[in-house]
């Protein structure tokens, strides 16, 4: 398409997000001098989310987590205004108030939102919250300051565990309800999830596995009073945090004939969004949580990575490719997924993707010392490594994953268990 081979001078980034800001910084760093519009449905400039489930709740420092933004970015902000529609024919983003923002290149970086509690009446009760945005975090921090008698988290992911950790640090009683038999298994596999379950229990978390909420009880003023569980149990609480995952913000793309589904916006390895016809949609790119892309580290299997590092890297790659004169000058997005979590005084870091892993082994340190490095294998290859307070070994394992080293990698040496015991991972991790 001729429009895509000429240099852009109107770029619209939809999503005042980490990925969006990363793209904006890269565009300017690469010399783009045209109009740069950043659209965000929240009133805030791009801000950092990881602190929202940790230090902001604990009030270690302030709640202001706006990301550093070089002054010379020269961005035109459209904040507090959601994008409503994409007009591919006219190449324009249409905002909720009707404003049309024409573009030569458009980056879709609208990310995800917290998946709401499925029963709308219960979700609307006072005391039932989700945690995704800055405003969510400030509200929850305020609740924690009032010292609720008990906080309950529903969901077995990292948000649940991080918030539970903060509650324990603040000496607030906390229950975590997890539908599965093991928490965190989807992200880090059953053995590591089981380890974290023990850590959480050791810190005083009332962790209930195989538990789900049958219904909620409210007081006459519409305030949450108690939860009744499927097993008949009852927990009195006026503070429930629903942390049951995220949903991708793609509804505004309905009608644009793009390849969207519940996994996000499908794109190719150059971060070019694909149309419903499977071909690159002219001038449209995607980055961050919303992008569904072929992962070269996993045989081009499609993946959506909801992590900080990917948002930064993919925003950067998309930006470079938006400026490329043609596909030959584009760079492939080949970020190796990574993420971290802090909870119960431990730092967990993961490199690679555990999805589909069939084996797991602790290869340095030990779970008993709460300081170890573990690796994940898939069909004989090392695909991921997790460290718990052992971050300085991780770069060597990252290199091994990138090389597709046999599982387990890096045999011998320091701090190794006498015998490496490989555990077979069941479906929970897949």
């Amino acid at each position: 398409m001729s429009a895509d081979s000429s240099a852009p001078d109107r770029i619209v980034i939809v999503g005042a997000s980490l990925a969006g800001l990363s793209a904006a910084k890269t565009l300017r760093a690469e010399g783009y001098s045209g109009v740069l519009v950043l659209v965000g449905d929240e009133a805030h400039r791009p801000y950092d989310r990881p602190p929202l489930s940790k230090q902001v709740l604990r009030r270690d420092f302030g709640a202001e987590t706006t990301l550093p933004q070089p002054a010379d970015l020269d961005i035109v902000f459209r904040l507090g205004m959601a994008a409503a529609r994409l007009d591919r024919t006219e190449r324009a983003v249409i905002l909720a108030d009707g404003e049309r923002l024409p573009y030569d290149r458009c980056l879709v970086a609208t990310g995800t939102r917290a998946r709401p509690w499925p029963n709308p009446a219960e979700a609307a009760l006072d005391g039932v919250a989700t945690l995704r945005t800055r405003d969510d975090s400030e509200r929850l921090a305020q609740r924690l300051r009032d010292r609720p008698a008990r906080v309950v988290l529903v969901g077995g992911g990292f948000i649940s565990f991080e918030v539970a950790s903060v509650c324990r640090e603040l000496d607030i009683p906390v229950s975590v309800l997890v539908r599965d038999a093991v928490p965190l298994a989807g992200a880090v596999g059953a053995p590591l999830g089981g380890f974290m379950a023990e850590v959480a229990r050791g810190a005083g978390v009332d962790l209930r596995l195989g538990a789900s909420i049958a219904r909620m009880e409210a007081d006459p003023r519409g305030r949450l009073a108690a939860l009744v569980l499927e097993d008949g149990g009852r927990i009195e609480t006026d503070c429930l945090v629903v942390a049951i995952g995220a949903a991708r913000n793609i509804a505004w793309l309905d009608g644009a004939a793009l390849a969207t589904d519940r996994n996000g916006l499908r794109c190719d390895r150059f971060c070019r969004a694909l149309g419903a016809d499977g071909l690159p949609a002219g001038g449209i790119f995607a980055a961050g949580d919303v992008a569904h892309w072929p992962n070269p580290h996993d045989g081009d299997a499609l993946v959506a990575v909801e992590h900080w590092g990917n948002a930064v890297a993919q925003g950067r790659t998309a930006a470079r490719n938006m400026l490329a004169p043609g596909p030959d000058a584009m760079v492939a997005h080949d970020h190796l997924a990574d993420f971290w979590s802090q909870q119960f005084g431990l730092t967990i870091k993961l490199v690679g993707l555990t999805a589909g892993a069939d084996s797991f082994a602790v290869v340095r340190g030990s779970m008993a010392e709460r300081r170890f490095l573990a690796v994940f294998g898939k069909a004989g290859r090392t695909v991921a490594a997790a460290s718990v307070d052992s971050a300085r070994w991780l770069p060597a394992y990252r290199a091994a994953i990138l090389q597709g080293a046999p599982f387990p990698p890096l045999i011998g040496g320091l701090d190794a268990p006498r015998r490496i015991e490989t555990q077979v991972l069941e479906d929970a991790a897949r």
Partner: protein
Amino acid sequence: MRVVVDLNRCQAYAQCVYAAPRHFVLHGREALVYDTAPDDADRAEIERAAQACPVRAITACLSESAENTAEHTAENGAAR
């Protein structure tokens, strides 16, 4: 100021804690917790912290003013 640390890169060398202890704290062995919005007056300390990071994980700049201090290297440089 506005500060962000790429905690994927961080290996808890704690150099920032020595440089700016009111703004960077280690919890446990490796959990770095930091002030995302330090006062502009603490710019010298934040700059020392950003420069001392062995893995260049710290990005900082002045709040909304026209000038930015520390580099935006962590992201920009890594991909080169």
